[in-house]
Protein backbone atom coordinates (compact mmCIF):
# COMPACT_ATOMS: atom_id res chain seq x y z
CA UNK A 1 0.00 0.00 0.00
CA UNK A 2 1.39 3.38 -1.00
CA UNK A 3 0.47 5.97 1.59
CA UNK A 4 1.11 9.59 0.68
CA UNK A 5 1.02 12.31 3.32
CA UNK A 6 0.70 15.96 2.37
CA UNK A 7 2.93 17.99 4.67
CA UNK A 8 3.65 21.68 4.94
CA UNK A 9 6.83 23.32 6.11
CA UNK A 10 5.97 26.47 8.01
CA UNK A 11 7.88 29.20 9.89
CA UNK A 12 8.40 28.14 13.52
CA UNK A 13 5.26 29.32 15.36
CA UNK A 14 7.45 29.93 18.44
CA UNK A 15 9.41 32.61 16.57
CA UNK A 16 7.91 36.05 15.93
CA UNK A 17 6.05 35.99 12.58
CA UNK A 18 5.85 38.86 10.12
CA UNK A 19 3.79 39.62 7.01
CA UNK A 20 5.17 41.04 3.81
CA UNK A 21 3.93 44.66 3.77
CA UNK A 22 3.03 44.66 0.05
CA UNK A 23 1.71 41.13 -0.62
CA UNK A 24 0.39 40.56 2.93
CA UNK A 25 1.74 37.01 2.76
CA UNK A 26 3.65 35.33 5.55
CA UNK A 27 7.42 35.84 5.52
CA UNK A 28 8.81 32.35 4.86
CA UNK A 29 12.44 33.31 4.39
CA UNK A 30 13.61 31.96 7.74
CA UNK A 31 14.00 28.37 8.93
CA UNK A 32 10.95 26.23 8.27
CA UNK A 33 9.72 23.30 10.35
CA UNK A 34 7.18 20.53 9.85
CA UNK A 35 3.73 21.88 10.62
CA UNK A 36 2.70 20.36 13.93
CA UNK A 37 -0.73 19.47 12.53
CA UNK A 38 1.00 17.37 9.85
CA UNK A 39 2.92 15.32 12.40
CA UNK A 40 -0.41 13.62 13.23
CA UNK A 41 -0.91 12.68 9.58
CA UNK A 42 2.62 11.31 9.34
CA UNK A 43 2.14 9.27 12.51
CA UNK A 44 -1.23 7.96 11.31
CA UNK A 45 0.29 6.99 7.97
CA UNK A 46 3.18 5.18 9.64
CA UNK A 47 0.79 3.25 11.88
CA UNK A 48 -1.50 2.27 9.01
CA UNK A 49 1.44 1.30 6.80
CA UNK A 50 2.86 -0.90 9.57
CA UNK A 51 -0.36 -2.93 9.55
CA UNK A 52 -0.45 -3.64 5.83
CA UNK A 53 2.47 -5.65 4.54
CA UNK A 54 4.61 -4.10 1.81
CA UNK A 55 3.45 -0.57 2.61
CA UNK A 56 5.49 2.56 2.24
CA UNK A 57 4.92 6.15 3.33
CA UNK A 58 5.84 9.04 1.05
CA UNK A 59 5.59 12.67 2.11
CA UNK A 60 4.77 15.33 -0.46
CA UNK A 61 5.32 19.04 0.00
CA UNK A 62 5.57 22.27 -1.92
CA UNK A 63 7.82 25.26 -1.29
CA UNK A 64 9.05 28.30 -3.20
CA UNK A 65 12.61 27.45 -2.10
CA UNK A 66 14.39 24.14 -1.68
CA UNK A 67 13.85 23.98 2.07
CA UNK A 68 13.73 20.37 3.30
CA UNK A 69 14.20 20.59 7.07
CA UNK A 70 10.52 19.91 7.77
CA UNK A 71 10.58 16.92 5.42
CA UNK A 72 13.61 15.60 7.30
CA UNK A 73 11.47 15.45 10.43
CA UNK A 74 8.93 13.24 8.65
CA UNK A 75 11.70 11.04 7.19
CA UNK A 76 13.31 10.75 10.64
CA UNK A 77 9.95 9.63 12.04
CA UNK A 78 9.95 6.79 9.51
CA UNK A 79 8.62 7.93 6.12
CA UNK A 80 10.51 6.19 3.30
CA UNK A 81 10.90 9.08 0.89
CA UNK A 82 9.87 12.63 0.14
CA UNK A 83 8.77 14.56 -2.92
CA UNK A 84 9.32 18.31 -2.81
CA UNK A 85 7.96 20.56 -5.51
CA UNK A 86 10.25 23.55 -5.41
CA UNK A 87 10.09 26.42 -7.85
CA UNK A 88 10.62 30.17 -7.50
CA UNK A 89 7.40 30.71 -9.45
CA UNK A 90 5.41 29.16 -6.58
CA UNK A 91 5.67 32.23 -4.32
CA UNK A 92 2.19 33.61 -3.66
CA UNK A 93 0.33 30.49 -4.80
CA UNK A 94 -3.22 30.32 -3.44
CA UNK A 95 -5.02 27.25 -2.10
CA UNK A 96 -6.31 26.01 -5.47
CA UNK A 97 -2.91 26.48 -7.11
CA UNK A 98 -1.35 24.55 -4.24
CA UNK A 99 -3.83 21.75 -4.74
CA UNK A 100 -3.01 21.54 -8.47
CA UNK A 101 0.70 21.25 -7.73
CA UNK A 102 0.25 18.73 -4.92
CA UNK A 103 -2.19 16.63 -6.98
CA UNK A 104 0.32 16.44 -9.85
CA UNK A 105 3.08 15.38 -7.46
CA UNK A 106 0.89 12.88 -5.61
CA UNK A 107 -0.21 11.27 -8.87
CA UNK A 108 3.42 10.33 -9.50
CA UNK A 109 3.54 8.39 -6.24
CA UNK A 110 0.57 6.24 -7.34
CA UNK A 111 -1.12 6.43 -3.97
CA UNK A 112 -3.57 3.98 -2.45
CA UNK A 113 -4.25 6.36 0.40
CA UNK A 114 -3.61 10.09 0.70
CA UNK A 115 -3.56 11.61 4.18
CA UNK A 116 -3.57 15.30 5.03
CA UNK A 117 -4.23 17.42 8.08
CA UNK A 118 -7.60 19.15 8.09
CA UNK A 119 -5.78 22.48 7.83
CA UNK A 120 -2.34 24.03 8.19
CA UNK A 121 -1.50 26.02 11.29
CA UNK A 122 -0.11 29.00 9.38
CA UNK A 123 -2.75 29.57 6.69
CA UNK A 124 -5.83 27.78 8.08
CA UNK A 125 -7.72 27.80 4.77
CA UNK A 126 -8.55 24.10 5.22
CA UNK A 127 -9.51 23.71 1.56
CA UNK A 128 -6.47 22.11 -0.06
CA UNK A 129 -7.11 18.42 0.79
CA UNK A 130 -10.58 18.25 -0.76
CA UNK A 131 -9.38 20.21 -3.79
CA UNK A 132 -6.57 17.66 -4.18
CA UNK A 133 -9.13 14.84 -3.97
CA UNK A 134 -11.29 16.47 -6.63
CA UNK A 135 -8.33 17.03 -8.95
CA UNK A 136 -7.25 13.41 -8.50
CA UNK A 137 -10.81 12.20 -8.97
CA UNK A 138 -10.74 10.44 -5.60
CA UNK A 139 -13.32 10.29 -2.81
CA UNK A 140 -12.46 12.33 0.26
CA UNK A 141 -13.29 11.59 3.87
CA UNK A 142 -12.70 14.55 6.13
CA UNK A 143 -12.20 15.17 9.87
CA UNK A 144 -11.13 11.63 10.70
CA UNK A 145 -10.58 11.01 14.38
CA UNK A 146 -9.82 7.32 13.85
CA UNK A 147 -8.70 5.51 10.71
CA UNK A 148 -8.29 1.81 9.90
CA UNK A 149 -7.45 0.12 6.63
CA UNK A 150 -6.81 -3.34 5.22
CA UNK A 151 -5.23 -1.93 2.07
CA UNK A 152 -8.37 -2.13 -0.06
CA UNK A 153 -10.79 0.08 1.86
CA UNK A 154 -10.66 2.57 4.69
CA UNK A 155 -12.88 2.82 7.76
CA UNK A 156 -13.09 6.23 9.35
CA UNK A 157 -14.71 7.73 12.41
CA UNK A 158 -15.64 11.14 11.09
CA UNK A 159 -15.85 13.87 13.71
CA UNK A 160 -19.16 15.76 13.78
CA UNK A 161 -20.58 18.37 16.13
CA UNK A 162 -22.78 15.74 17.76
CA UNK A 163 -20.25 12.88 17.90
CA UNK A 164 -18.92 10.92 14.97
CA UNK A 165 -20.10 9.12 11.83
CA UNK A 166 -18.79 5.70 10.82
CA UNK A 167 -17.70 6.05 7.19
CA UNK A 168 -16.27 3.37 4.95
CA UNK A 169 -14.89 3.92 1.49
CA UNK A 170 -12.85 2.02 -1.06
CA UNK A 171 -9.26 2.96 -1.83
CA UNK A 172 -7.71 4.98 -3.28
CA UNK A 173 -9.07 7.89 -1.25
CA UNK A 174 -8.08 11.10 0.48
CA UNK A 175 -8.52 11.25 4.25
CA UNK A 176 -8.01 14.33 6.40
CA UNK A 177 -7.12 13.77 10.04
CA UNK A 178 -7.76 16.09 12.95
CA UNK A 179 -5.04 17.20 15.34
CA UNK A 180 -4.53 14.92 18.32
CA UNK A 181 -5.84 11.70 16.67
CA UNK A 182 -2.58 9.92 17.46
CA UNK A 183 0.48 10.69 19.52
CA UNK A 184 3.25 11.57 17.04
CA UNK A 185 6.40 9.57 17.77
CA UNK A 186 9.72 11.23 18.51
CA UNK A 187 12.13 11.16 15.60
CA UNK A 188 14.79 8.93 17.20
CA UNK A 189 18.47 9.61 16.66
CA UNK A 190 18.73 6.46 14.60
CA UNK A 191 15.84 7.80 12.55
CA UNK A 192 17.51 11.19 12.21
CA UNK A 193 20.73 9.56 11.00
CA UNK A 194 18.83 7.22 8.64
CA UNK A 195 16.90 10.16 7.18
CA UNK A 196 20.16 11.53 5.75
CA UNK A 197 20.24 8.79 3.15
CA UNK A 198 16.53 8.68 2.31
CA UNK A 199 15.60 10.06 -1.11
CA UNK A 200 14.15 13.56 -1.41
CA UNK A 201 12.91 13.95 -4.97
CA UNK A 202 12.93 17.64 -5.85
CA UNK A 203 10.69 18.53 -8.78
CA UNK A 204 10.15 21.78 -10.65
CA UNK A 205 6.89 22.94 -12.21
CA UNK A 206 8.30 21.94 -15.58
CA UNK A 207 8.89 18.40 -14.29
CA UNK A 208 5.19 18.23 -13.43
CA UNK A 209 4.12 19.85 -16.68
CA UNK A 210 2.49 22.79 -14.92
CA UNK A 211 2.48 26.20 -16.59
CA UNK A 212 4.00 28.76 -14.16
CA UNK A 213 1.17 31.20 -15.02
CA UNK A 214 -1.31 28.84 -13.32
CA UNK A 215 0.41 29.28 -9.94
CA UNK A 216 2.18 31.96 -7.92
CA UNK A 217 0.89 35.50 -7.63
CA UNK A 218 -0.12 35.53 -11.33
CA UNK A 219 -2.19 32.37 -11.15
CA UNK A 220 -3.79 33.11 -7.79
CA UNK A 221 -7.55 33.64 -7.92
CA UNK A 222 -7.50 35.11 -4.48
CA UNK A 223 -5.80 38.29 -3.37
CA UNK A 224 -5.24 39.50 0.16
CA UNK A 225 -6.41 43.10 -0.04
CA UNK A 226 -5.87 44.09 3.56
CA UNK A 227 -4.89 42.71 6.93
CA UNK A 228 -5.66 44.03 10.36
CA UNK A 229 -4.63 43.01 13.83
CA UNK A 230 -6.93 40.63 15.69
CA UNK A 231 -8.99 42.18 18.42
CA UNK A 232 -7.06 41.90 21.64
CA UNK A 233 -8.60 39.70 24.26
CA UNK A 234 -10.72 41.66 26.70
CA UNK A 235 -10.48 41.19 30.43
CA UNK A 236 -12.61 38.32 31.75
CA UNK A 237 -15.60 38.67 34.00
CA UNK A 238 -14.93 38.06 37.67
CA UNK A 239 -17.70 36.24 39.49
CA UNK A 240 -17.71 37.02 43.21
CA UNK A 241 -19.31 34.17 45.08
CA UNK A 242 -22.16 35.49 47.17
CA UNK A 243 -23.71 32.11 47.75
CA UNK A 244 -24.90 31.89 44.11
CA UNK A 245 -21.43 31.39 42.54
CA UNK A 246 -22.14 27.89 41.25
CA UNK A 247 -25.46 28.86 39.63
CA UNK A 248 -23.91 31.89 37.97
CA UNK A 249 -21.08 29.79 36.51
CA UNK A 250 -23.60 27.24 35.20
CA UNK A 251 -25.66 30.09 33.71
CA UNK A 252 -22.54 31.42 32.00
CA UNK A 253 -21.65 27.98 30.62
CA UNK A 254 -25.21 27.61 29.30
CA UNK A 255 -24.99 31.04 27.71
CA UNK A 256 -21.88 30.05 25.72
CA UNK A 257 -23.52 26.68 24.98
CA UNK A 258 -20.95 24.35 26.46
CA UNK A 259 -23.45 22.66 28.80
Amino acid at each position, binding site marked *: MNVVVCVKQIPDPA*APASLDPTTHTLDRSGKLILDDSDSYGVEMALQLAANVEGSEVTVVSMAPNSE*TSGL*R*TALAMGAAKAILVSDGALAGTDALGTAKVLAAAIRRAEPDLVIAATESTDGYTGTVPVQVAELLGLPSVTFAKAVATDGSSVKVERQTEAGYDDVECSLPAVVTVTAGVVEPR*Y*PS*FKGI*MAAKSKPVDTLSLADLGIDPSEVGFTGARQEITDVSAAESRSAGEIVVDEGDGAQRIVAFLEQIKVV
Partner: protein
Amino acid sequence: MRTRLDPQDPLALSSLLDADDLLTIQTVRRFVHEHVEPNIDRWYEHAEFPRHLVKPLGELGVLGMHLQGYGCAGASARMYGLACRELEAGDSALRSFVSVQGSLAMFAIWKFGSDEQRLRWLPAMAQGDAVGCFGLTEPDAGSDPSGMRTSARRKGSDWVLDGTKLWITNGSIADVAIVWARTEEGIRGFVVPTGTPGFEAIEIRRKLSLRASVTAELVLRDCVLPADAVLPEVRGLRGPLSCLDEARFGIAWGALGAARSCFEAALRYAGEREQFGRPIAGFQLTQSKLVEMAVELGKGELLAWQLAQLKDNGNLSPEHVSIGKLSNVRQALAIARSARSILGANGISLELPVMRHMTNLESVATYEGTEEIHTLAIGAALTGQPAFR
Protein backbone atom coordinates in the same frame (compact mmCIF):
# COMPACT_ATOMS: atom_id res chain seq x y z
CA MET B 1 16.47 43.30 5.63
CA ARG B 2 17.89 44.10 9.05
CA THR B 3 17.48 41.14 11.37
CA ARG B 4 16.14 41.90 14.81
CA LEU B 5 17.74 40.43 17.90
CA ASP B 6 15.85 37.35 19.06
CA PRO B 7 15.92 37.18 22.88
CA GLN B 8 15.80 33.36 22.61
CA ASP B 9 18.95 33.40 20.50
CA PRO B 10 20.66 36.79 20.94
CA LEU B 11 23.64 36.02 18.72
CA ALA B 12 21.53 34.28 16.03
CA LEU B 13 23.67 31.17 16.50
CA SER B 14 20.98 28.88 15.09
CA SER B 15 22.30 30.04 11.71
CA LEU B 16 25.40 27.91 12.45
CA LEU B 17 23.29 24.76 12.70
CA ASP B 18 22.17 22.34 10.01
CA ALA B 19 18.88 20.46 9.62
CA ASP B 20 20.03 17.52 11.78
CA ASP B 21 21.11 19.88 14.54
CA LEU B 22 17.74 21.63 14.51
CA LEU B 23 15.91 18.31 14.54
CA THR B 24 18.06 17.26 17.49
CA ILE B 25 17.11 20.38 19.41
CA GLN B 26 13.44 20.07 18.52
CA THR B 27 13.29 16.39 19.50
CA VAL B 28 15.12 16.57 22.83
CA ARG B 29 13.40 19.81 23.78
CA ARG B 30 10.02 18.16 23.23
CA PHE B 31 11.10 15.16 25.30
CA VAL B 32 12.21 17.42 28.15
CA HIS B 33 9.08 19.51 27.90
CA GLU B 34 6.76 16.49 28.01
CA HIS B 35 8.62 14.15 30.36
CA VAL B 36 10.89 16.24 32.58
CA GLU B 37 9.57 19.75 33.14
CA PRO B 38 6.20 18.75 34.64
CA ASN B 39 7.78 16.70 37.46
CA ILE B 40 11.38 17.72 37.92
CA ASP B 41 10.68 19.92 40.95
CA ARG B 42 9.07 16.97 42.74
CA TRP B 43 11.87 14.56 41.84
CA TYR B 44 14.41 17.08 43.05
CA GLU B 45 12.52 17.76 46.26
CA HIS B 46 12.09 14.06 47.07
CA ALA B 47 15.55 13.09 45.79
CA GLU B 48 14.11 10.68 43.22
CA PHE B 49 15.82 9.67 40.00
CA PRO B 50 13.19 9.32 37.23
CA ARG B 51 14.16 5.75 36.49
CA HIS B 52 11.10 5.27 34.30
CA LEU B 53 12.70 7.63 31.77
CA VAL B 54 15.69 5.36 31.11
CA LYS B 55 13.84 3.24 28.58
CA PRO B 56 12.29 6.22 26.73
CA LEU B 57 15.75 7.83 26.58
CA GLY B 58 17.00 4.60 25.00
CA GLU B 59 14.15 4.60 22.49
CA LEU B 60 14.95 8.20 21.67
CA GLY B 61 18.45 6.95 20.88
CA VAL B 62 20.27 9.45 23.06
CA LEU B 63 22.25 6.82 25.04
CA GLY B 64 25.64 6.50 23.35
CA MET B 65 24.21 8.41 20.40
CA HIS B 66 27.65 9.59 19.22
CA LEU B 67 29.08 6.06 19.05
CA GLN B 68 29.11 4.00 15.83
CA GLY B 69 27.60 0.53 15.59
CA TYR B 70 26.24 -1.82 18.28
CA GLY B 71 22.80 -0.25 18.13
CA CYS B 72 24.10 3.32 18.55
CA ALA B 73 22.98 6.10 16.23
CA GLY B 74 26.42 7.37 15.16
CA ALA B 75 25.41 11.02 15.43
CA SER B 76 27.86 13.90 15.15
CA ALA B 77 29.60 15.41 18.17
CA ARG B 78 27.57 18.55 17.66
CA MET B 79 24.27 16.68 17.74
CA TYR B 80 25.42 14.95 20.93
CA GLY B 81 26.41 18.31 22.43
CA LEU B 82 23.06 19.86 21.54
CA ALA B 83 21.23 16.91 23.07
CA CYS B 84 23.23 17.37 26.29
CA ARG B 85 22.38 21.07 26.29
CA GLU B 86 18.66 20.44 25.92
CA LEU B 87 18.62 17.68 28.55
CA GLU B 88 20.43 19.86 31.07
CA ALA B 89 18.00 22.70 30.40
CA GLY B 90 15.60 20.24 32.07
CA ASP B 91 17.96 19.23 34.86
CA SER B 92 21.64 18.39 35.27
CA ALA B 93 20.59 15.01 36.68
CA LEU B 94 19.24 13.90 33.29
CA ARG B 95 22.34 15.02 31.44
CA SER B 96 24.54 13.40 34.10
CA PHE B 97 22.74 10.10 33.61
CA VAL B 98 23.19 10.30 29.84
CA SER B 99 26.86 11.37 30.16
CA VAL B 100 27.73 8.51 32.48
CA GLN B 101 25.82 5.96 30.46
CA GLY B 102 27.04 7.02 27.02
CA SER B 103 30.33 8.82 27.43
CA LEU B 104 31.82 6.97 30.40
CA ALA B 105 30.43 3.44 30.66
CA MET B 106 29.49 2.76 27.03
CA PHE B 107 32.46 4.64 25.61
CA ALA B 108 34.90 2.65 27.78
CA ILE B 109 33.47 -0.63 26.46
CA TRP B 110 33.19 0.67 22.90
CA LYS B 111 36.75 2.00 22.82
CA PHE B 112 38.66 -0.48 24.98
CA GLY B 113 36.42 -3.55 25.20
CA SER B 114 36.57 -6.91 23.44
CA ASP B 115 34.00 -7.78 20.78
CA GLU B 116 32.28 -10.06 23.29
CA GLN B 117 32.04 -7.22 25.83
CA ARG B 118 30.71 -4.82 23.22
CA LEU B 119 28.08 -7.25 21.96
CA ARG B 120 27.09 -8.22 25.48
CA TRP B 121 26.56 -4.68 26.76
CA LEU B 122 26.37 -1.92 24.14
CA PRO B 123 23.07 -2.76 22.39
CA ALA B 124 21.32 -3.24 25.74
CA MET B 125 22.78 -0.01 27.13
CA ALA B 126 21.87 1.94 23.98
CA GLN B 127 18.29 0.69 24.31
CA GLY B 128 18.08 1.63 27.98
CA ASP B 129 17.68 -2.04 28.98
CA ALA B 130 20.93 -1.93 30.96
CA VAL B 131 22.38 0.93 33.02
CA GLY B 132 26.09 1.55 33.42
CA CYS B 133 28.26 3.40 35.91
CA PHE B 134 31.92 4.33 36.00
CA GLY B 135 34.11 3.80 39.07
CA LEU B 136 37.24 5.92 39.10
CA THR B 137 37.01 8.39 42.03
CA GLU B 138 37.79 7.05 45.51
CA PRO B 139 37.44 8.50 49.01
CA ASP B 140 41.13 9.45 48.96
CA ALA B 141 41.70 9.82 45.21
CA GLY B 142 39.76 12.57 43.43
CA SER B 143 41.76 15.05 41.36
CA ASP B 144 44.72 12.66 41.52
CA PRO B 145 43.35 9.32 40.35
CA SER B 146 46.86 7.85 40.25
CA GLY B 147 46.54 7.59 44.02
CA MET B 148 43.76 5.00 43.74
CA ARG B 149 43.84 2.09 46.18
CA THR B 150 41.37 -0.25 44.55
CA SER B 151 43.36 -3.27 43.42
CA ALA B 152 42.90 -6.27 41.18
CA ARG B 153 45.07 -9.33 41.70
CA ARG B 154 45.31 -12.56 39.78
CA LYS B 155 44.00 -15.77 41.29
CA GLY B 156 44.60 -18.47 38.74
CA SER B 157 43.03 -17.06 35.59
CA ASP B 158 40.49 -15.02 37.60
CA TRP B 159 40.78 -11.47 38.91
CA VAL B 160 39.98 -10.48 42.49
CA LEU B 161 38.98 -6.85 43.10
CA ASP B 162 39.13 -5.01 46.43
CA GLY B 163 38.50 -1.37 47.16
CA THR B 164 35.99 1.47 47.38
CA LYS B 165 34.75 3.95 44.78
CA LEU B 166 32.93 7.11 45.81
CA TRP B 167 30.54 9.64 44.20
CA ILE B 168 29.54 7.21 41.50
CA THR B 169 26.62 8.48 39.42
CA ASN B 170 24.08 5.70 38.60
CA GLY B 171 25.98 3.43 41.04
CA SER B 172 23.08 1.79 42.84
CA ILE B 173 20.84 1.42 39.75
CA ALA B 174 23.55 0.11 37.47
CA ASP B 175 23.58 -3.32 35.84
CA VAL B 176 27.23 -2.98 34.96
CA ALA B 177 30.10 -1.01 36.48
CA ILE B 178 33.33 -0.06 34.75
CA VAL B 179 35.80 -0.25 37.62
CA TRP B 180 39.37 1.00 37.35
CA ALA B 181 41.87 -0.74 39.57
CA ARG B 182 45.59 -0.95 40.16
CA THR B 183 47.23 -4.20 38.96
CA GLU B 184 50.78 -5.46 38.56
CA GLU B 185 50.52 -4.29 34.95
CA GLY B 186 49.40 -0.76 35.86
CA ILE B 187 45.86 0.60 36.05
CA ARG B 188 43.28 -1.50 34.19
CA GLY B 189 39.56 -1.37 33.61
CA PHE B 190 37.09 -4.11 34.51
CA VAL B 191 33.57 -4.77 33.32
CA VAL B 192 31.76 -5.77 36.50
CA PRO B 193 28.15 -7.01 36.39
CA THR B 194 26.69 -5.52 39.54
CA GLY B 195 25.20 -8.87 40.59
CA THR B 196 28.71 -10.28 41.07
CA PRO B 197 29.24 -11.55 44.64
CA GLY B 198 31.47 -9.12 46.53
CA PHE B 199 30.08 -6.07 44.71
CA GLU B 200 27.89 -3.70 46.68
CA ALA B 201 26.51 -0.25 45.84
CA ILE B 202 25.30 2.01 48.64
CA GLU B 203 23.29 5.08 47.68
CA ILE B 204 24.55 8.38 49.05
CA ARG B 205 21.70 10.30 50.66
CA ARG B 206 21.55 13.82 52.10
CA LYS B 207 22.85 15.57 48.99
CA LEU B 208 22.02 19.24 48.39
CA SER B 209 22.86 19.05 44.69
CA LEU B 210 21.90 16.75 41.80
CA ARG B 211 19.08 15.50 43.95
CA ALA B 212 17.27 13.93 41.00
CA SER B 213 20.37 11.86 40.24
CA VAL B 214 21.54 8.63 41.85
CA THR B 215 24.97 8.81 43.48
CA ALA B 216 26.54 5.84 45.24
CA GLU B 217 29.53 4.33 46.92
CA LEU B 218 30.80 1.11 45.35
CA VAL B 219 32.34 -1.42 47.70
CA LEU B 220 34.31 -4.36 46.27
CA ARG B 221 35.30 -7.11 48.71
CA ASP B 222 36.97 -10.19 47.29
CA CYS B 223 34.97 -9.60 44.14
CA VAL B 224 35.97 -12.44 41.82
CA LEU B 225 35.76 -11.84 38.07
CA PRO B 226 36.66 -14.13 35.17
CA ALA B 227 39.75 -13.43 33.06
CA ASP B 228 37.66 -11.89 30.28
CA ALA B 229 36.24 -9.18 32.56
CA VAL B 230 39.23 -6.93 31.95
CA LEU B 231 39.08 -4.30 29.19
CA PRO B 232 41.76 -5.71 26.88
CA GLU B 233 42.66 -2.64 24.85
CA VAL B 234 44.06 -0.21 27.42
CA ARG B 235 46.52 0.02 30.29
CA GLY B 236 47.25 3.03 32.47
CA LEU B 237 45.38 6.21 33.36
CA ARG B 238 45.02 7.08 29.68
CA GLY B 239 42.02 4.73 29.70
CA PRO B 240 39.79 6.46 32.24
CA LEU B 241 41.05 9.93 31.33
CA SER B 242 40.05 9.54 27.69
CA CYS B 243 36.54 8.56 28.82
CA LEU B 244 36.43 11.69 30.97
CA ASP B 245 37.29 13.82 27.93
CA GLU B 246 34.22 12.42 26.22
CA ALA B 247 31.99 13.26 29.14
CA ARG B 248 33.51 16.70 29.71
CA PHE B 249 32.71 17.60 26.13
CA GLY B 250 29.04 16.92 26.93
CA ILE B 251 29.30 18.94 30.13
CA ALA B 252 30.66 21.99 28.28
CA TRP B 253 27.47 21.86 26.21
CA GLY B 254 25.15 20.79 28.99
CA ALA B 255 26.02 23.63 31.36
CA LEU B 256 24.76 26.03 28.67
CA GLY B 257 21.33 24.43 28.91
CA ALA B 258 21.09 24.99 32.65
CA ALA B 259 22.36 28.54 32.18
CA ARG B 260 19.84 29.25 29.43
CA SER B 261 17.00 27.99 31.59
CA CYS B 262 18.11 30.41 34.35
CA PHE B 263 18.46 33.29 31.90
CA GLU B 264 15.01 32.70 30.44
CA ALA B 265 13.44 32.52 33.88
CA ALA B 266 15.15 35.77 34.91
CA LEU B 267 14.23 37.57 31.68
CA ARG B 268 10.58 36.55 31.99
CA TYR B 269 10.41 37.44 35.66
CA ALA B 270 12.09 40.83 35.14
CA GLY B 271 9.45 41.70 32.57
CA GLU B 272 6.57 40.76 34.86
CA ARG B 273 7.79 41.87 38.27
CA GLU B 274 6.90 45.48 39.00
CA GLN B 275 8.57 47.64 41.63
CA PHE B 276 8.49 51.43 41.92
CA GLY B 277 5.65 51.34 39.41
CA ARG B 278 7.35 49.58 36.51
CA PRO B 279 8.84 46.25 35.49
CA ILE B 280 12.24 45.68 37.04
CA ALA B 281 13.48 44.88 33.51
CA GLY B 282 13.34 48.64 32.99
CA PHE B 283 16.03 49.35 35.58
CA GLN B 284 19.60 49.72 34.42
CA LEU B 285 21.05 47.49 37.12
CA THR B 286 18.74 44.61 36.13
CA GLN B 287 19.43 45.15 32.44
CA SER B 288 23.14 45.01 33.17
CA LYS B 289 22.71 41.57 34.71
CA LEU B 290 20.51 40.29 31.87
CA VAL B 291 22.88 41.59 29.21
CA GLU B 292 25.88 40.04 30.94
CA MET B 293 24.04 36.69 30.96
CA ALA B 294 23.11 36.92 27.29
CA VAL B 295 26.66 37.89 26.30
CA GLU B 296 28.24 35.05 28.28
CA LEU B 297 25.68 32.55 26.95
CA GLY B 298 26.51 33.55 23.40
CA LYS B 299 30.24 33.22 24.03
CA GLY B 300 29.74 29.85 25.68
CA GLU B 301 27.72 28.60 22.71
CA LEU B 302 30.45 29.64 20.31
CA LEU B 303 33.05 27.90 22.46
CA ALA B 304 30.99 24.70 22.56
CA TRP B 305 30.36 24.93 18.83
CA GLN B 306 34.09 25.15 18.15
CA LEU B 307 34.77 22.15 20.42
CA ALA B 308 32.25 20.18 18.38
CA GLN B 309 33.88 21.25 15.12
CA LEU B 310 37.25 20.09 16.45
CA LYS B 311 35.80 16.82 17.71
CA ASP B 312 33.95 16.05 14.48
CA ASN B 313 37.17 16.74 12.56
CA GLY B 314 39.24 14.59 14.92
CA ASN B 315 41.32 17.53 16.18
CA LEU B 316 40.06 17.90 19.73
CA SER B 317 42.74 17.81 22.45
CA PRO B 318 42.08 17.23 26.17
CA GLU B 319 43.17 20.82 26.84
CA HIS B 320 40.57 22.13 24.39
CA VAL B 321 37.95 20.26 26.39
CA SER B 322 39.40 21.70 29.60
CA ILE B 323 38.92 25.23 28.24
CA GLY B 324 35.30 24.43 27.44
CA LYS B 325 34.45 22.70 30.70
CA LEU B 326 36.23 25.32 32.80
CA SER B 327 34.72 28.34 31.11
CA ASN B 328 31.18 27.16 30.39
CA VAL B 329 30.50 25.72 33.83
CA ARG B 330 32.01 28.77 35.54
CA GLN B 331 29.84 31.09 33.46
CA ALA B 332 26.77 28.91 33.93
CA LEU B 333 27.15 29.19 37.69
CA ALA B 334 27.62 32.96 37.46
CA ILE B 335 24.48 33.19 35.30
CA ALA B 336 22.49 31.03 37.75
CA ARG B 337 23.54 33.20 40.70
CA SER B 338 22.79 36.41 38.84
CA ALA B 339 19.40 35.07 37.77
CA ARG B 340 18.67 34.13 41.36
CA SER B 341 19.37 37.71 42.43
CA ILE B 342 16.93 39.09 39.84
CA LEU B 343 14.25 36.73 41.15
CA GLY B 344 14.72 38.00 44.70
CA ALA B 345 13.07 35.82 47.30
CA ASN B 346 11.19 33.90 44.59
CA GLY B 347 14.58 32.78 43.35
CA ILE B 348 15.03 30.34 46.23
CA SER B 349 11.77 28.54 45.49
CA LEU B 350 11.45 25.22 43.68
CA GLU B 351 8.58 26.80 41.75
CA LEU B 352 11.22 28.31 39.50
CA PRO B 353 14.15 26.34 38.08
CA VAL B 354 16.94 28.72 39.01
CA MET B 355 18.15 27.61 42.43
CA ARG B 356 17.76 23.97 41.43
CA HIS B 357 20.10 24.56 38.49
CA MET B 358 22.42 26.59 40.70
CA THR B 359 22.88 23.86 43.28
CA ASN B 360 23.25 21.25 40.52
CA LEU B 361 25.96 23.30 38.86
CA GLU B 362 27.99 23.25 42.07
CA SER B 363 28.45 19.51 41.46
CA VAL B 364 28.96 19.97 37.75
CA ALA B 365 31.77 22.43 38.51
CA THR B 366 33.51 19.80 40.64
CA TYR B 367 32.94 16.50 38.88
CA GLU B 368 34.95 15.51 35.84
CA GLY B 369 37.76 17.83 36.87
CA THR B 370 37.59 20.86 39.11
CA GLU B 371 38.23 24.36 37.86
CA GLU B 372 41.66 24.15 39.51
CA ILE B 373 42.65 20.94 37.74
CA HIS B 374 41.50 22.19 34.34
CA THR B 375 43.42 25.42 34.95
CA LEU B 376 46.55 23.43 35.71
CA ALA B 377 46.06 21.25 32.64
CA ILE B 378 45.69 24.28 30.37
CA GLY B 379 48.56 26.00 32.18
CA ALA B 380 50.83 23.03 31.58
CA ALA B 381 49.92 23.01 27.88
CA LEU B 382 50.50 26.76 27.57
CA THR B 383 53.83 26.93 29.38
CA GLY B 384 55.22 23.44 28.98
CA GLN B 385 55.61 23.37 32.77
CA PRO B 386 53.28 21.00 34.65
CA ALA B 387 52.53 22.64 38.00
CA PHE B 388 50.90 19.62 39.60
CA ARG B 389 53.20 16.68 39.01
